Structures are given as C-alpha cells and as structure tokens.
C-alpha cells in the first residue's frame, strides 16, 4: 500500500443501516440516504456501551467494537 493512501478502517461488524439491505454499496454523501444507524447487538441507536451508533463513531476504541 502506498504510504500516502489512508488505511481502510473497517467499521464495527454490528453496525446497520437500512441502505445496507437494498444496495450493495453506500455513499455517505448520498442526499437520499437516511444517515440513521442501529446496532445489531442492541437493536437500538446506541451500542452495548450506551454510546451512539454511527459510521464514524463505531470504531476500535469502543469496548463493544468487533471487526
């Protein structure tokens, strides 16, 4: 990998959005995407740690994160 290429960061495997169920890829800048996420473990908009579920939030420094 090129040293200037930012490493791809896998989101938590439990993050879900409705768009995942009808399109094979999601574009965060798509004006028609909901911008709403839930956790497949809690089925809530917050994770097992009580913090919000979002693509940028569900990362490796959370105790509930799973890749």
């Amino acid at each position, binding site marked *: 990998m090129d040293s200037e290429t930012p490493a791809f960061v896998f989101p938590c495997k439990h993050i*879900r959005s*409705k*768009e995942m*169920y*009808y*399109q*094979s890829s999601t574009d965060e800048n*798509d*004006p*028609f*995407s*909901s*911008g*709403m*996420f*839930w956790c*497949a473990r*809690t*089925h*809530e*908009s*917050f994770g*097992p*740690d*009580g913090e*919000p*579920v*979002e693509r940028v939030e569900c990362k490796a420094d959370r105790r509930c994160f799973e890749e």
Partner: protein
Amino acid sequence: MAKNAWPPADKTVLMGKRIARLDGPAKSTGRAKYAYDMNRPGMLYARLLSSPHAAAKVTAINLDEAKKVPGVVGAWAEIATAEPDNEVRYAGEIIASVAATSEEAAREALTKIQVQYQVLPHLVDDTDATKSDGREQGEDKPDAAAVDAAISGAEVKVSGKYGLACITHACHESHGQVCEFGADGNLYVWPSTQNVSAYAGGLKDASGLAVNQIFVDCQYMGGGFGSKFDSGRWGAISVRISKETGKPVKLMLERDQELLIGGNRPSAYADVTVGATKDGTISVWSSNAWGSGGMGGAGRLGVPYVFTKIPNVRTLSKGVRTNRRGAVAWRAPGHPQACLITMAAIADLAAELKMDELEFFLKNVALTDRPEVYTEELKIAADMIGYKDKAHLRSNPTPGTLKRGLGIGIHTWGGIGNDSQTEVVINPDGAVSVSIGTQDLGVGTRTAVAIVAAETLGLPLDKVQANIGKNSYPPSGASGGSTTIGGVSASTRDASTIALNALLEKVAPVLGVTVDELEARDGKIQVAATPSKSLPWAKACSLLGQMPISGRGENKRGKGVSDGTILDDQGVGGVQIADVSVDVETGQVFINEFVAVQDCGRIVDLLTAESQVYGALIMGVTYALYEECIYDNITGRMLNADLEFYRLATLADVGKLKVHMMTGPGYDTRGVIGLGEPPVIAPGAAISNAVANAIGVRVPTLPLTPEKVLAALEQGGKLA
C-alpha cells in the same frame, strides 16, 4: 428474439394501465394472513415489559411472582442488573419478557414482575437546543463572512423559526413475528417485515443457526414506513424463547409499545434567514438547525431543500440527544423536515415581498435541479386546484372568521432500483410462475411483478402466478428508499425475457422463421411481421416436452440487468398545493382540496401509482395536523402512546384529494422509479403554507393544532 428494453408506452397491453391489486379480494375478505394471524400448534404468547423511566439504572429484577401465574412458561430479565450494562435510556426500553399459553396470562405475568430502579436525570425536551448535551454536527459552507454580507445586502429578507415534532410510525400492524423451530432443526419465521430476503440475518445469533437454516415467510404486512428492516429486539427475544422452551412463539408489540418503541421520526427545528432581490430572486440562505433522534443521531437534514442553487448558503446543524427511542427511518428520511423548513421560509419571503406564492416559486425554479419538471408540474397543479380564482396575498385575507388559503410545497427524491433477482418458470402446460424474494407493503408490488411478467410474455394477467414474500425465492432488496418497483420490475423483465427467448428457440423452427422474427403478444407466439402466422401460448409451451424452462434475471443498482439494459431510473420531482380553511375562533384547520402532481418515470400500474400518492397525502395531512409524540418533561414519558390521543387522520379529515401522474415524453420514456417516498414529503410544507396564507401569520411548527394556530394568531406568528 425478445429484448429487455421497455416497449413504447403506447404499445403496452398492461403496463401503465389502471389494474386492481391481485390480492385485493384476499385482503378485503380476511383471507390474507398477516403475522398476527399465524397460529402454530402449542404456540406460546410472549410479552415484553417496558421501563417506565426515561433514565435509570436497574438494580434488581424479581421474576418469581410472574412465573407463578397459571399458564406462564417462563420469564426472563432482558437487561443486566449490574454495572455497566444496567442503564435504561428511554421510557419504553425493554426490561423483561414472559411467555405463556395465553395472551391473558402473559399480560398478567408482566404486572407481577418487580423491578428496582435507581432513577437518573433525563432530557426529553428537544425544542430548545441550548438545553442539549448533544454533540455538534455543524458545517459552514461557504465562508460565513460571504453569507453575512449577502444577508446584509439582501433587498428583502425574513427570519423565522420553523420545525416539526417527533412522530412515530404508528404501523397498523404492530412489529413482531411468529417463530418455530422445526423437527428438521430449521427455524421458520412469519414476521411483519419490509426486508424478506435479508431478515434472517438478524436472527442468526439468537437462533444459533446459519442463515440458510432460517426460513422467512411474509405474504402480507400492514405498514412499515421504514421501521421494519430489522428483526428488532422483540424478534431476537422470541427466537430465544422458542429455542429455550421448544415451542412456537408469537411476539407482537402491544399498541402502546408499538407507539413507544416501534419507530421514531426525528424532530427538526431551524432558525432561518432567507433573503432576495426586490424582483423576488432568492439570493441567500442561512440556517441553524437542530433535531432529536433519541440517544442516537437525528439523521440528515438537507436544507435549503430543492432550491439547492441558492448562491449564498450557510447551514449549521446539531443533533440533540434525548431520552427517547432512537431515530428510525420514516418515509424519505429527513426530507419532510427539510421541505417544511425550506418551503415555509421561502413562502414567508414571498409574503414579505407581497408576491404571489406561485409566481415566486416559478420565478425561483431555476434554483432547483429540475426547473422544467417543476415548472410544468406547478402549472398543472395550479390549474387542478383553480389557483387563479382562489389565490390571494397573505396580506389580503378572505373575510369572515373562516379564512381560506392556498399553499405550495415541492419535493424531490432519488428512487433508483434496488439489487434484485427474479426467476421465471414456463411450464409445458403453459403455466407461468414468477418467484422473487421481495415483499408487498400493501402498495401493489405483487401485482406489479405479475404485470411486468405478463406484459413481457404477452399473456393475460391471470395466467401468471406471482410468488413473493419468502427468503427461499431469489434475493431481492428490502423495500426502502423507493427502490423496490425499479428493482423488481427490472429483474422480472430480465427473467421473463430470458425464459421467453428459450421458448422462442423451440417455436422458431416450427413456424419456419428465425427467433428474431418472433414476438409474444395476445396469448400467442407470433411472427411480428405476419401475426396470422402464430402458435397459441399453450401449444407453443407443449413444444417443451416434459421439462419446464426458466430464466433468472438480475438488476444491479445503477448497472442495469443481465445484458446491461437500464430499466430503472432515478430522480423525480413533485408539486403539491393545499387549499385549507381555518377557523380563527377555534384554531381548527380544515382541508378543502389537496392536489398532488408527481413524476415517477415509467409507470407499471397507474392505479396503484395513484393509490400510493393518495395514501401519502392522507399520511401527510396526518403529520401536518395531528401527529406528535407528546412527552412529559417531568416523568420523561410519552403521554399519548395510543391511537386515541395519538390521532391519525380519518377520511372526514383529508378533504378532496386529486392526483395527477406525469406521463408522456420525458416521463414514461424514462425507466421505472419508486413512489414510496416522494409524495409524502411536501404535504406538511404545502398545508403549513396554506394555513399561513389563510390566517396571515405563520404557525411555526407542525402539527398545526388548534392551540398552536390560536397562539400564532395571538402572537403575530412569532414562536413563544
């Protein structure tokens, strides 16, 4: 050889015509079975206990007395009682579950569960962003100085606060499912879902099975509106109970829980300043918006809406974290909110200019992405409602205490077709089966699939059997984002074409022509140039011998079907104009007429397309005038979690509805585009603008309740 491209609209036999739903008789006679109607031998009824507190820590749960209730098979804690996982974050959150041999026993057992809470401070008020502990999500575009300069330089400007309360999805069929582990070790599930093909994934962990051991069947469902993609905690809990007890389990949310935890469309509020030149050209937009999606994000709010080419724009937005159920996608997430905020501010600017609202919209239509479409639609809508005869400036209200007014809203949506696969089987006796793992949310998907197959095969509609609603059929995307009709129409057309071409290969030598010379039409396979040279469908199919033939079609989002033909499309516009009367003594709003003009590309079934728009208008009247999750700031509880005080519109409330679907060149020459989202976006804006036009002042927030109308009149339109 049959081609995938759609035939010209004037050459179709079924597509684009008004065709009644195939399952209408089953639904109207009660033969249609929904999840709640499923009953299995030895089935248990599960029920859930919700937290009465908006914020608390659970320190103990005693299930002993619940387990003693006759008929109760089990009771379970659904939340930890020790740190750090024992925190409740909203009233309604699931605390415990029970299962019993009757619904009555299950309900009684819930009352026997003893829970100790350590109550914590909560926040449920989302109307004041300064009280929030939410994180900033702001963005500046372009630089603030340029926008400030544009505001200062605007020849006319208005500032106002606009917004919409949080509402819930209020599905008539509540969330839930019936599930059963079979003797074969597989799990069989009958859910209410808008996500048949991928629903099983949500039950994988609870069941301990691989997804290919979970069989989903949803033939009918009673409303999802974006809230039924996930199996939910209730789904996982019912599977776990079924696994533990070895019994089938039915777990459907009770009505109060349906309103508490079934869904949540986030609120949105904004302080807006918008300016224009004296001739009425919008020159600047600045807004500071906030909203609440419970403990998660509030989703996207794209303002200024539709008028995306306003030259100077600054938008800030902030999510307010409240102790409410988290945001769940509701038809066109963020768009009804953005539409109301934008159209209200723009209509107020027109009023400030003392300019007719329609004239103002037409003047600024160049600031949208679809000026030609909106111009045409605005003129049609104006003609349909008799705009010229009824319109008046806001500063010139009608006489008397019953004030009449008109208001406009315009909207947009994408709606490209989803990823979808269909299998079409042609049998030697001529019978045709179409199978696809899609779902019909009540909008006519089953009928549309049959129409496309029948049109392609040249058959009457009743000669095609449409099989949907099972995850054992070829996978098809969930119904979200108005992507269903584009995806399923494309994959069904593709599959039908492939199967038909296999049949034509058998027929061509019999008729002494090449495959390219044949077509399927009017129940026959015929030579296109010499229709008298033909074989009836059944005779043609007899050439298959004893083996059926099949075609598997596929639509890939944005990439077309198997041969690359693009059969769907994206990007629509719509215009709505409301005609209302407002009693300025009581504050009541009455809908006189409500007109919708909608583009959706190529129409598969004109009747169900119009029906979609009528339904959206009714839902729009509901959220414009009545719907609001009312929370008590002291207890943190939702006060109207029932259908008595969470009011939905009845037919007596919606006025005379008129729908016009755009057809002809530029519309039905496009691909198929979904309609689930677009027509439900603008009603709030159109009705709010009509009320402002009627009474001369803006009622700043939806719903437009009598109390708010009277307050606006008293305060001259300023938010208290």
